[in-house]
């Protein structure tokens, strides 16, 4: 490919992303679907801007997968693994084993040979880390029980790929000699020898990471040239990938291992912040590549087969997941989210499929069809999540609510309603409770609701932005509504509704940052609580104290700062204009931070004469004989 067409391709990718992602977001489809859509449109099947030769696209796709696995590896902290160990091993292990068995069984019924059926089972048991995590994050479902369980399962799957890669050569034991072109060290070895080479390479990488990377990174750190860090990280990935290719393994696995090695290094956070900017774009590239790799020609030829396989596979996985969710005591709606999120087939499948093609476990036609199946199922994940959000979740809100709503209306006329009982609202709630104030509590996380029930705290499951639910909670008679929800969009919709239907209800609203604060001010909310301000200032005051400033002075300085800060924010809010729509949110935030800092004028307000400053009186005293005590 000459330089011109490379630039042209980059332009096409970027333009497509910029065009379709905001469009998809605006339509409520989420960024992942936007990227996928962009890929489909610019891909060979529709517009054909890129990848007419097909191989270019897979190149791009592999690059995206490699980079993503590198980052996932970096996030695999041993401590995190330990905290989630039972979920990862139990839930994740069972998911992989049961799905593999079920899918392999189904394949056997379709008269697929045993080794191929096992390979398909393993490949299809995996889910898409990239799409699922991205979507869960986007919708703010990560902290829910379903989100945490999904994460644990995905983590186990990421790890399970390693033994799978080691097992694959064994499955190919009866197959014809490998026909793939690039020569590797293990070509002429028996199956057990191949497995040994694979394990040896993995061990070598871990060993090198332990004893080689640290000294190198130390030297790089001492040069104090920042970009050298990024360069070193990339070099490591590439070097490991080359090594893996040499022994005939996928470079994706190599990158993953490279990431894990760096996760244990003390330079990890440095590297992460260096690479963070690349992450989003590379993931986007990956999704575009997935979209572009959907072979519509193949689908047109065998639509029934392919869609039958997609639906069949996803149904099997969903059933397995639903069973496991039940076993691990997820409530019905969380279990549905968990199952919908993980019933797709992941990007590892592309890697594993190409390996099974190379080692002749599967033939070319099968892998072609399965690749299309995987791509379609991945594209369906965000759609399924959307379906869940729009259809399933509200239904559960209604049914679960109405059963509990009945006893609420009869006996509760609490002066306070708390919407959102997470890490923010729960503190407020506990405080009011400790002071004998009764509150009606609404929360959207059904598992949290159940857990609180067990502690004897009455919490109602439901979406506080629904009118009927607020009426049921006693909004017409309550004095105060505390909105402490995690989801900011929900917060604004509650605010709007209360303004419209319950104008006498006083609202105390949690805001995340300055952006939210401005918007809430625009909505006419009088009592806004930026969630970290008080804690940050308390910390700042304590820091002043540790530096030797008197406690009372630190305390007053923090109070003064808060007053000043709130005044500045009110000022900024008033001077904001319609330009804000066009300035990027981030840039705007930085600008506002600058304005706030400029308005601090720390010198003037700290030194402004306090009542206890007697220097003025002293000056007078030395001039005149008669002087008042103070002031």
């Amino acid at each position, binding site marked *: 490919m000459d330089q011109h067409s490379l630039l042209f391709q980059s332009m096409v990718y970027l333009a497509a992303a910029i065009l379709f992602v905001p469009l998809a977001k605006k339509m409520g489809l989420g960024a992942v679907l936007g990227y996928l859509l962009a890929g489909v449109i610019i891909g060979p099947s529709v517009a054909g801007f890129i990848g007419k030769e097909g191989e270019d696209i897979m190149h791009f796709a592999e690059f995206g997968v490699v980079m993503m696995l590198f980052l996932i590896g970096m996030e695999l902290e041993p401590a995190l693994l330990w905290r989630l160990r039972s979920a990862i091993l139990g839930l994740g292990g069972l998911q992989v084993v049961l799905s593999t068995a079920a899918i392999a069984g189904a394949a056997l019924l379709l008269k697929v040979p045993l080794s191929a059926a096992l390979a398909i089972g393993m490949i299809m048991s995996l889910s898409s880390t990239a799409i699922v995590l991205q979507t869960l994050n986007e919708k703010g479902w990560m902290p829910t029980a379903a989100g945490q369980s999904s994460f644990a399962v995905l983590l186990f799957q990421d790890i399970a790929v390693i033994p799978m890669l080691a097992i694959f050569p064994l499955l190919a034991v009866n197959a014809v000699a490998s026909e793939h072109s690039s020569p590797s060290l293990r070509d002429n070895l028996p199956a057990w020898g191949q497995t040994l080479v694979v394990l040896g390479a993995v061990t070598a990488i871990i060993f090198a990471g332990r004893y080689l990377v640290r000294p190198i990174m130390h030297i790089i750190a001492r040069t104090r040239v920042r970009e050298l860090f990024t360069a070193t990280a990339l070099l490591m990935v590439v070097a490991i990938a080359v090594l893996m290719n040499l022994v005939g393994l996928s470079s994706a696995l190599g990158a993953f291992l490279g990431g894990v090695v760096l996760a244990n290094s003390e330079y990890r956070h440095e590297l992460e912040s260096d690479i963070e900017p690349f992450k989003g774009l590379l993931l986007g590239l990956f999704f575009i590549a997935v979209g572009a790799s959907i072979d519509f020609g193949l689908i047109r030829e065998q639509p029934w087969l392919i869609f039958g396989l997609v639906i069949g596979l996803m149904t099997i996985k969903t059933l397995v997941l639903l069973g496991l969710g039940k076993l691990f005591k997820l409530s019905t709606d969380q279990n549905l989210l968990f199952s919908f999120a993980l019933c797709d087939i992941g990007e590892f499948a592309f890697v594993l499929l190409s390996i099974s093609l190379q080692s002749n476990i599967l033939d070319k036609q099968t892998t072609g069809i399965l690749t299309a199946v995987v791509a379609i199922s991945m594209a369906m994940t965000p759609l399924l999540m959307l379906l869940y959000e729009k259809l399933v979740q509200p239904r559960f809100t209604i049914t679960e609510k109405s059963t509990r709503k009945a006893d609420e209306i009869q006996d509760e006329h609490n002066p306070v309603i708390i919407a959102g009982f997470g890490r923010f609202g729960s503190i407020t709630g506990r405080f009011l409770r400790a002071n004998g104030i009764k509150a009606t509590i609404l929360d959207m996380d059904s598992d949290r609701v159940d857990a609180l029930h067990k502690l004897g705290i009455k919490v109602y499951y439901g979406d506080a932005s629904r009118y009927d639910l607020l009426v049921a909670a006693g909004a017409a008679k309550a004095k105060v509504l505390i909105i402490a929800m995690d989801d900011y969009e929900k917060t604004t919709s509650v605010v709007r509704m209360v303004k419209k239907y319950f104008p006498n209800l006083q609202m105390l609203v949690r805001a995340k940052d300055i952006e939210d604060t401005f918007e809430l001010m625009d909505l006419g909310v009088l009592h806004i609580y930026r969630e970290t301000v008080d804690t940050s200032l308390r910390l700042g005051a304590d820091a002043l104290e540790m530096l030797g400033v008197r406690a009372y002075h630190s305390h007053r300085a923090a109070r003064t700062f808060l007053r000043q800060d709130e005044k500045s924010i009110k000022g900024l809010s008033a001077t904001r204009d319609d330009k804000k729509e066009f300035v990027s949110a981030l840039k705007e935030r930085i600008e506002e931070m600058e304005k706030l800092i400029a308005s601090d004028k720390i010198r003037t307000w700290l030194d402004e004469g306090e009542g206890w*400053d007697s220097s003025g009186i002293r000056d007078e005293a030395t001039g005149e004989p008669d002087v008042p005590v103070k002031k």
Partner: protein
Amino acid sequence: MARVLINFAHPALEKSRMHAHLVPMIKSLPDITFNDLYEHYPDLDVNVAREQELLSRHEIILMQHPMYWYNAPAIVRQWQDLVLEHGWAYGHTGNALKGKYMSNIISAGSRESEYRKGGRHGFPLQQFLLPFTQTAILCNMNYISPYIIYGVHRMDKSDIIEEVQRLKSVLQKLTSPDFDLTTLDQIQDLNELIQEPIQKA
């Protein structure tokens, strides 16, 4: 049982001259409990249990503070309101402070000559401390007329150091093992305990 408790109240010690010098000296004395109220309770949220426990453990309670507007700084009033509980400090069952001695260590910007009839402030400073006197009596304590450092506004560095040594000698006398507590019943005010000659620093 430790003998002397000093409850210190200064809202802006960093701007003070006299107390900024007195405090390190007091802290260096071995047998004195120094309780810095504003440092402990910057939000004026006085811990009643802790304060009552401190009072119980000491025989001589000295309130050290500057005079602002003929009174003690705000936290002293807060302290009084919260700590001197009915049933504990006074009332039929309030005997916790019975027999203890109480006094004030005070700095005033003006000279003594201004605290008298016809002077700038019209009355002797002791008279402004009437609430302390009666509070001590109500709590079954013996009130000793206060230790006063006058004319702080006009003092230079050497004057201040001299004052520090004077108070040091008083506190040393109060804490010395052979000091007879009943002496306190006979003296006019705490200044009487100043040991001459003053030891130079």
